[in-house]
Structure formats: C-alpha cells, structure tokens
C-alpha cells in the first residue's frame, strides 16, 4: 500500500508527539507536579498512530487508562496538546475541565468518546457507538483500543458477541504488551495466539507487529474498510511492548532485563525513522527538526497548563446532568 510521503511524515510526527508528551508527563509526575496516577504508552505509539491514520474525524474511538496516544493520534497533528496537558495538571482549561485527568482524557469533538479505567467498558461502549452508526446508517466506524488484560473479562466476550451477531462496524484493537499490570497474560490464559479468540465470534482475527506503524496502518485499513462496508467487526492484535511500568512509579521488576532490552530494541520510533530515511521520505536533519518542533510545542503546552487556573470549587457541581431534553 502506497502512502503519500506527507502522510508518512505526519505519522512520524504523531508518534514523536505522543512520546515527547509522555516523556514530559513522566518527568513532571515524578516531580510531583501532576496529581493522581499516570499510565504511559511509551513503546506502543505505532498502534494508536497506525490505526488512527485511517480514521475520519467523525469516526469514534474509545480508549483505556493508557490512552494518551489514542487521543493525540485521533485526528492528527493539528490537535493542540495544550488542553490535554492542562487536563493532566488538573486545570480549568483542561480538555475535560479537570474532571478526567490522565486516565479518562477524552474529546468527543474529535471523536474520542471517553477513556475507561474499568477493563472492557470501553469495548461495550464502542459496541453501542457502532450500533448507533448502523441504526443511523452513517458509514462511521467505532474503534475500541483494549489491552491484553481485557481479553479475559466477561465484557470482552459479551461485547464481541453482540458486535458480531449484529454485524456492527467495530474494530477491537488489542495492544498486547503481554503485561496486564504486573501479570503476564500467558500465565493466566491458555492461549498462544490471542487472535484465536476471534474464531469464537466468527470474525476475522489478525495479528500484526504493533511496533511497525506501516504494518498496523495496513491491517487497520482493511478492517476499517470492511466495517464501513457493513461487513462487521474485526479483532486485531498489535504485538507490542511497554517501555515503562504499568503506572509511573512501577519499577516493573516482574519483567526480566532481557525482555526490557528487547523491548527497547523494538522501539517503534527509531525504527520508523530509519525506515523513512531508507525510503528517502525523510532526512536525519528533517527528523531532528520534527523532534525540536514537537519539543517546543510541548514546552508551550506545559507553559499553558502552568499558567492556567485551577477549577473553581463550585465547578464540582456542574456537568452531572444535561439540561433540557427532547421537546
């Protein structure tokens, strides 16, 4: 599949934006500047980027606790980092007015319905999004990003069954980093290939190297086209790995050094950079410039967050109920 040079560079920039966003968040979290908890996706950027590069603004995704990459990738690089950073800092100018934080970061204006912290709820929610698309006869698709930890929830079975039975335009994309928090998925699951699960739903199940953004792009493109045509859901496994712990502060001593070293070698960003240079789509100098530009953008986003006020105490009472109703 030929992808235009401009798009390739955009995808590279997206991955860099996710990485540098999260690197800075890690730094500021460690410095005690960010409240709560953060779960970073460093090492998994190619999954979000490769899938979302196929989506339209009006396609809807649901995400997880490890969701920064999904929202950054959803509509591309014109989407400002600043309200997201402000949200993580708990500021009034945050994309969710300081009511979501890292774990629930979302923006329906760009088709990110919500990021869910209870495993599987993002999936069943996306089933409903896909159902609405079908009932309204739009050709929107719903993509739910899940982790391997979700595979053994009842919701996975229920949601995939419903999506398959009703032939809904849903893509369930599992970022399999093999660690459900600190538990190895293969220690608690009697499967070698998790895509075997798709057989039970009579839908395609495809494994892809989740650290190869172009491979992810291609697999997602087919699944999305299939969904748009009304041919039903697809289950995709992106084989990936987590460069950091489950949450910031997790020393991830449950992983061997060898596994961590291998994960570092698979880092999707240097890998894609090398590929783009080989393809003569990018020079080293241009790549460096992208990093510098993104770093500057992130510095400005952090400044915006720091300069922003905290929410007012009375804001605690707003946004519980929608006002009005169908007349």
């Amino acid at each position, binding site marked *: 599949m030929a992808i235009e040079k401009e798009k390739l560079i955009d995808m590279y920039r997206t991955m860099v934006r996710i990485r540098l966003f999260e690197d800075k968040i890690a730094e500021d979290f460690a410095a005690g500047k960010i409240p709560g908890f953060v779960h970073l996706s460093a090492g998994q950027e190619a999954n979000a980027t490769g899938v979302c590069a196929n989506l339209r603004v009006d396609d809807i995704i649901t995400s997880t606790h490890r969701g920064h990459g999904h929202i950054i990738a959803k509509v591309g690089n014109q989407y400002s980092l600043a309200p997201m950073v402000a949200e993580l800092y708990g500021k009034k100018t945050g994309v969710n007015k300081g009511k979501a934080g890292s774990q629930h970061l979302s923006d329906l204006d760009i088709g990110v319905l919500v990021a869910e912290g209870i495993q599987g709820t993002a999936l069943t929610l996306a089933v409903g999004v896909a159902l*609405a698309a079908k009932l309204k006869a739009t050709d929107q698709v719903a993509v739910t990003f899940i982790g391997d930890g979700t595979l053994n929830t009842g919701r996975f079975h229920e949601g995939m069954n419903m999506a398959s039975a009703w032939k809904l335009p849903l893509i369930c994309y599992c970022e399999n980093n093999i660690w459900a928090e600190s538990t190895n998925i293969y220690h608690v699951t009697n499967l070698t290939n998790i895509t075997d699960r798709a057989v039970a739903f009579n839908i395609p199940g495809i494994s892809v190297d989740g650290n190869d953004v172009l491979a992810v792009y291609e697999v997602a493109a087919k699944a999305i086209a299939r969904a748009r045509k009304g041919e039903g859901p697809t289950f995709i496994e992106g084989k990936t790995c987590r460069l950091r712990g489950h949450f910031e502060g997790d020393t991830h001593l449950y992983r061997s050094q060898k596994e961590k070293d291998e994960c570092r070698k698979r880092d999707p960003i240097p890998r894609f950079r090398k590929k783009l240079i080989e393809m003569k789509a990018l020079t080293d100098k241009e790549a460096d410039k992208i990093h510098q530009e993104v770093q500057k953008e992130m510095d400005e986003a952090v400044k915006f967050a720091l300069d922003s006020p905290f929410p007012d105490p009375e804001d605690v009472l707003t946004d519980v109920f929608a006002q009005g109703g169908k007349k």
Partner: protein
Amino acid sequence: MREITYLQAITEAIDEEMARDPTVFIMGEDIRAWGAPLGEFKGLFEKYGGERVRDTAISETAMLGATAGAAAMGMRPIVHIMFSEFLGVCMSDIRCVLTKTRYMTGGKTKFPATIMSYSGAGVSAAGEHSACPYGWLMAIPGLKIVAPATPYDAKGLIKSAIREDNPVQVLYHIKLIFDRLTGEVPEEEYTIPIGVADIKREGSDVTVVAVGLMVHRALAAANKLQEKGISLEIVDLRSLAPIDKQTIINSVKKTGRLVIMDEEPKTESASSEIAAIVAEEAFDLLDAPIKRVCAPDTPIPFSPTLEKAWMPDEEDLIKAVTEIT
C-alpha cells in the same frame, strides 16, 4: 375517562415515543417473541421491526454498554434489564459508564437512556427476582429514578424518561402488573415531570411517603384509619431521584408527623434518605419521631406466608401510625 391497565400504560408510552422519535429504540431479552416476559413491549417488534426492537442475548453488560454508546451518539435507547436484581450484573456500566461519563468528559457528552426493570415482591418470585433496589440506585450520582404506582403515572413518567437527556431508571412494580391494576389514562398526549411527587390522598394528621405498590397499601391503611378518626396524607414520590423534598416537607409542615413506607430492607433504603432529609431540613416541624415501615434486613423469601410477613403491609403501617398519634 377510559381506564387501562398499568401494563397497557407502559406499552402505550413506549409505542407513542417510538412513533414520534425515530432515535428511540429498544434492546432486551425475549423482546421479539414475547415483548419481554410480561409483555410490556408486545406488538412493538411487529410495528417497528427488528432494527428498532432488538432481541438481545442474555448479556446485560453488553446491553448496558451498548445503551451508553448509542446514547452518546444521539440515539435514545430503551434497555430492558428484566428484573431489577439483574442490574447488579451490569452495575459498572450504570454506575461508571452511563452516569459518570458526562461528568468525566467535562460535559462534552450526554446520555439520554432509559433502563426499564421490574421491581418488587408479592408474586413469590423468591430471592433474586423480587427486589426494590431503591436505596442502592439512589446512591448513584447522575441517575434519575422513577417508580410509578398507577397507570397514569407509568405512562407519563416513562414518556418523560425517554425524552430526558440523562439516564433514567424506570422501576415498575411486578405485582401491579400481575394484579392487572387499572386506572384512568387520557387518550390525549401528556407527560409527568421527573422529580415531582404527587399527593395521592390529602390528610391532616400523619404524612405517609411511599412509592410503587406501597402507595396502594398506604391508601388502604388510610381508609381503615379514617374510620378511627386518623387522617393520613399519602405522598407518592413517583421519582426517587431527584427526590421532591419540598412536597415532603410541605406535607410534614401540615401534619407534624412522618411515616415512610418502603418495600426494602430497612438499612440504607430509600426510607433512610427520606428520614435523613426531614430530620436535617425540617426537624422543627416534627411533633413525633419519624417512623419507618420497611422490610426486614433479610433476603426476600419464597413461600407466600414468608413473603407476606416480609413485605410491609397496611397493618404494619397502621401500627406505626398508631404509635405516633
């Protein structure tokens, strides 16, 4: 005015809303063949077809998740979670997804969804099919709850629930369906606002607050007590969330006495909250302690004899009223 049953009123409400608004659709178990086990959706599959009247697997978490997702996309789903204890199966989707997401998105989303479930004992359905989980649901911020006692209220409240831009749980009482309760329901269009109580009987000596089947038992008790010269005012809350505090307090202002009749185990029930509201906001109006007529803190038994003993009835209410008058 014509009289129809409680069940017919429920069906009419849904039918009318589906006719006026193409975004309204239903998901539920046994919807196609039976119109749900008690027939409240009967005829709708034939009228609106399988796209809008969707037969589901026994799959409450998927049903509730799909309800939330479709609602967020501008549809108005009605989901039938048959017996109210089954709400426990999909409670994360209600307690977290459906009712918290608007807040957690900073108001960027809304969830116009209606959950319909049977509640209540009195038909020997035993421990898992008889609950009125009022207190349990009232503890969920972001959820509105209605529990109609009459055909008129059932129709008007369900229509409002479907038009509401927020999640609404409708709890309709199984015994009122089994007993084929009838009542006046106009042919003309009407709705009943959520959050507004209704005084089902005016009185001067004691305020009785109730919902659902308990309203009828309170009315029966009021007739008996009238003969003894005690006048009960029966406040049918109709909505458990939001609760119509002002109507309760206004009534207590008149009577000075409050009994709450609630078909739930007493601990953390709707009665707990109502008693707390009056104790906190209208203590000076009370001439006697607040009394609660509730079920004991046990599971709901099967045998009719045990079930009758478990359920609050008019004799229990008369006893409580007598203690404070």
